[in-house]
């Protein structure tokens, strides 16, 4: 029994190793540094959001005269002013980070898992399984992203969990294809042939030989999926399909847009837009830098 624990611990350690090396490699690239730091800030803000948000995101702010403080421009006690419903924009912004990251990370992990599963199985086993899975991927690739999401959220109801489910249903397809192509090249490697000849089980080969080598692509794909997930959640919320009981940035923009305050209340519209851009592009920065470091032909040899 102790022997298997020992081996699994070793395996976990070995699986973690590439992530550590990736991290160290990423640091050298200036873009990745920028991306990682911005992303890090978002994660910290998301974790400590309830404590640093000055007000409850939905609490109505009252003026001295007891009237609802609507569309107040930024002031000392409301750094980013208030919304058309008298809520504090800064608190909604901070709480919004929690939603964006929750959707982003959970959906990305789910997408990453399914893409890897489909990619590895169809890439490694090939034959009929490969055909079936690839035809399924073709079908999934032909479904227009947002319209499908609109129908699905209409069907399931506009809660955050449903949005995560819809995003997972939508984005596993691209990853599956990328990972499958990488697995195909790995499978042809000589040592895989030897291992097979030596009687190793499929699972053993996949875990020991195939998976570690494609971790690079999986990591890249998961980073991109976080960006897609945040982007799609924001678009869905903006279209009014988001969960109104939460304060995602897309939801803030939807409320601003629906209240016709888009042009007058810049302090209500600009911050969530900038947060979205910052978060998504920081992820793209990490993904891009990662791709350049690990793709020999792109590496900057100067």
């Amino acid at each position, binding site marked *: 029994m102790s022997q298997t624990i020992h081996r699994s611990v070793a395996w976990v350690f070995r699986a973690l190793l590439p992530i550590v090396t990736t991290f160290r490699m990423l640091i050298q690239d200036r873009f990745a540094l920028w991306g990682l730091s911005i992303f890090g800030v978002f994660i910290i803000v998301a974790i400590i959001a309830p404590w640093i948000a000055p007000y409850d995101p939905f609490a109505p702010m009252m003026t001295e005269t007891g009237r609802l403080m609507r569309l107040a421009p930024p002031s000392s006690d409301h750094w980013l002013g208030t919304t058309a419903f008298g809520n504090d924009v800064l608190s909604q912004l901070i709480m919004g980070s929690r939603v964006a990251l929750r959707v982003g990370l959970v959906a990305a992990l789910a997408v990453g898992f399914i893409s890897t599963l489909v990619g590895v199985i169809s890439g490694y086993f090939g034959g009929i399984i490969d055909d079936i899975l690839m035809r399924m991927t073709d079908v999934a690739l032909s479904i227009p992203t947002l319209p499908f999401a609109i129908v699905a959220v209409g069907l399931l109801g506009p809660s955050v969990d449903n949005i995560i489910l819809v995003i997972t249903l939508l984005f596993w397809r691209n990853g599956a294809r990328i990972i499958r192509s990488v697995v195909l090249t790995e499978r042809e490697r000589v040592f895989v042939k030897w291992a097979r000849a030596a009687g190793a089980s499929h699972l053993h080969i996949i875990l020991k030989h195939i998976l570690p080598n494609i971790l690079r692509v999986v990591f890249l794909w998961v980073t991109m999926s976080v960006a897609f997930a945040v982007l799609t959640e924001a678009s869905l919320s903006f279209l009014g399909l988001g969960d109104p009981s939460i304060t995602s940035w897309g939801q803030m*923009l939807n409320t601003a847009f629906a209240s016709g305050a888009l042009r007058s209340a810049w302090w209500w519209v600009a911050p969530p837009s900038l947060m979205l*851009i910052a978060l998504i592009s920081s992820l793209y920065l990490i993904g891009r830098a990662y791709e350049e470091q690990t793709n020999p032909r792109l590496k900057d040899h100067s």
Partner: protein
Amino acid sequence: MRAYITRRLLQAILVVFVVTTIMFFMFRIMPADPTTMFLEGGMTEEARQVLLEEWGLNGTIWEQYVLYMGNLLTGDFGNSFFYRKPAWEVLFPFIINTLWIAVPGLLLGAFIGSALGMIVGWAPRGGKVERSGILLATIIRGAPSFVVGIGLLAVFSSYLNWVPGYGMGDPQGQTGLMRYLNWDFAHHLILPLCAVIIFFIPENLLLMRSGVVEARTEDYIELVRAKGVSEKRVAWHAGRNSMLPLITWLFPALAETIAGIVVVEIVFSWPGVGRELVLAVVRQDYPVAQAAFFLLAIMIVLANLAADLTYSKLDPRVAYK
């Protein structure tokens, strides 16, 4: 080559068939049904049955499915519940409006994107041009299309007031074909088109750039330069070779384009397929929504096929078994 095309077409038909089926069942198991709009107004139960029967919604789901698919083969998308006109007739004018921003947007975005990508890719490695090019492209790529839309609206329409922000033309404008060919329509087209172009540039730029960066280390580039041709011509060789990954990405990206365009149409009140699709889904107008999905699925599948064919034209090495 011919065998390949027929195989791909068969595959395409299968894919479109499956997508339409998925969409059909998704609409049918929606809790609300199209008569909801009238129930609120107090429609009697018998009247509701008459409507359901007229719209072919009263049989079992399986009967409805067979009926729908049967009609589909004969090109009949069924009548819209809301407009009571053939779904195709409802959608057709919207398709043209969407194409007005989708096609030029896609092409201009791809053209500008790849041109910039070539410049950034050809610039000295690690230089200022490369760094700022990549940073800018990544930031714009990070902006959701509605943020781009809102930004354009805020700056050009409300602050600078150069361009109208909404609709497709002045209410007094001419009608029929002439309405598309006049200055006023172009004036309204500018902002939504820019939003789509901006939505497209970053991907193209970054893909072309990495293509050019890879190509410039190739041996043939050295020989071309040795031939004493102009530097621009040498860059063209690198650019020409990096068009391949671009094309394979560009056409299938239509699935994402439609998503982006739906939001652009809503932000700019542009009467296109995307906006009508959202309205149709909210109204439970299945035939129109399904016709729109059918149309989008076909566009995407054809795009994939087009990508493969142009790929072979661009890269002679790819022979088709």
